[in-house]
């Protein structure tokens, strides 16, 4: 027997491609603009969201039959905020260095619309195991886009990857800077993240015409 049934593995794999939260559902754009100026931050954010979304989806799914529908959005917000704050406090106490790296992301995770979006669209109507898979899948789909955007923005904007000077030194003029190449500082500003995401959407829809919406 396979580890996951066909239906379950679809929950994980779909968000990676044809139902990607950023490029198809257009959720979580704000954080994709904010933190993709370097690859390292993108990876940290992707892992944090994976954790929060996976866990949050399970909690909401377990509570789905007792949540009053009139205040469900508030309940979702409270659940995700509580989770994030508790994790933040525990990290501050037992992994202080790590918590300093993550502190900037805490606010961004709570307000990430992917998280609220998946709670609302999936966890409220499905069991915990399927919700967990959906959370992991969507967070991974989000993470892939962050890493792609972060890769291009750091490479073209700063000439580095994960902090390593892969293109040479822009001040000492070594590597490809010796032949007149310059970093594109514009890549570091958030509008370029939007343009990179736009290019990904374009490429994806050119390859799969079924994704193009009719107007």
């Amino acid at each position, binding site marked *: 027997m396979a580890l996951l049934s066909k239906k379950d593995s679809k929950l994980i794999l779909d968000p990676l491609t044809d139902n990607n939260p950023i490029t198809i559902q257009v959720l979580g754009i704000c954080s994709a603009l904010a933190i993709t100026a370097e690859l390292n931050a993108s990876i940290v954010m992707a892992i944090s969201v994976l954790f929060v979304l996976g866990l949050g989806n399970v909690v909401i799914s377990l509570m789905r039959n007792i949540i009053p529908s009139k205040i469900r959005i508030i309940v979702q917000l409270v659940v995700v905020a509580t989770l994030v704050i508790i994790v933040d406090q525990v990290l501050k*106490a037992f992994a202080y260095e790590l918590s300093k790296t993550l502190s900037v992301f805490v606010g961004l995770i709570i307000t990430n619309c992917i998280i609220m979006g998946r709670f609302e669209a999936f966890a409220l109507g499905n069991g915990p195991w399927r919700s967990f898979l959906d959370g992991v899948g969507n967070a991974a789909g989000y993470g892939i886009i962050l890493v792609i955007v972060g890769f291009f923005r750091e490479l073209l904007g700063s000439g580095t990857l994960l902090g390593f000077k892969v293109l040479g030194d822009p001040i000492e003029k070594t590597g490809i800077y010796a032949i007149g190449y310059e970093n594109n500082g514009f890549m570091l500003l958030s509008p370029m993240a939007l343009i990179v995401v736009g290019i990904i959407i374009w490429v994806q829809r050119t390859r799969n015409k079924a994704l193009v919406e009719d107007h």
Partner: protein
Amino acid sequence: MEKRTEKNVYTILFSIGMVIVVGSLLAFAASALKPTIDENKRLEKQQNILYAMGVNENDESSANFVSTDVAPELFDQYITKQLVIQGNDITEDDQAYLIDVKKEQANAKAGLERKLPVFIGEKDGKTYYIAPIYGKGLWDAIWAYVAMDEDMVIQGAYFDHKGETPGLGANIKQRFFMDDFIGEHLKSDGKFVGIDVAKSNADPKNEDKTDNEVDAIAGATITGNGVAAMIKSDLKLYVPFFNNLKK
């Protein structure tokens, strides 16, 4: 019939229950973890101060503190004196590094005399005067520990921030930014001018140490301005102390 979860009474009871559960959970977590967190913060201050005076474990490109296990020991070893300047009084206080600079700034605004801590470190026969400064960046607080010699020439600095943009403003705590400050003069012709984080800097390799300028980070203008502003406003207060040293 209406579903149970649709009823108003149920909604109200649910919210009350949720607030109690979540509230006590958070309160419990916060108070249970507070001692550990405070201890971490105390050690971090010691690490920061030691970092500024060059006691650190930096490798080629990244900034690394001494480990928390040895920080208190090294702190006692290298920091020979901690002073608190308050107006014309200078007192010795071995807890001076715990002074909250943010609170002191608020006190100064309220008309009280501000306490200015300064930590005196000795390393390889050289004396360092380390001062904590505090200001604001683009999103939230930024702060620093600056080590100077008696001429107010910077010998080392550690910058940190609460919530600057990763990859942009957050880079003030990277070596390539902090190291630029080493050797920079805070004074020009004997007068305090501070250090500008300059965008139109004709000296990107930072060879001219007396120009009162370091190179700014692309995409982090407001954070950079915040750094320059806090250096100017907070370190200026130490000028009388340094003038007295030379007498």
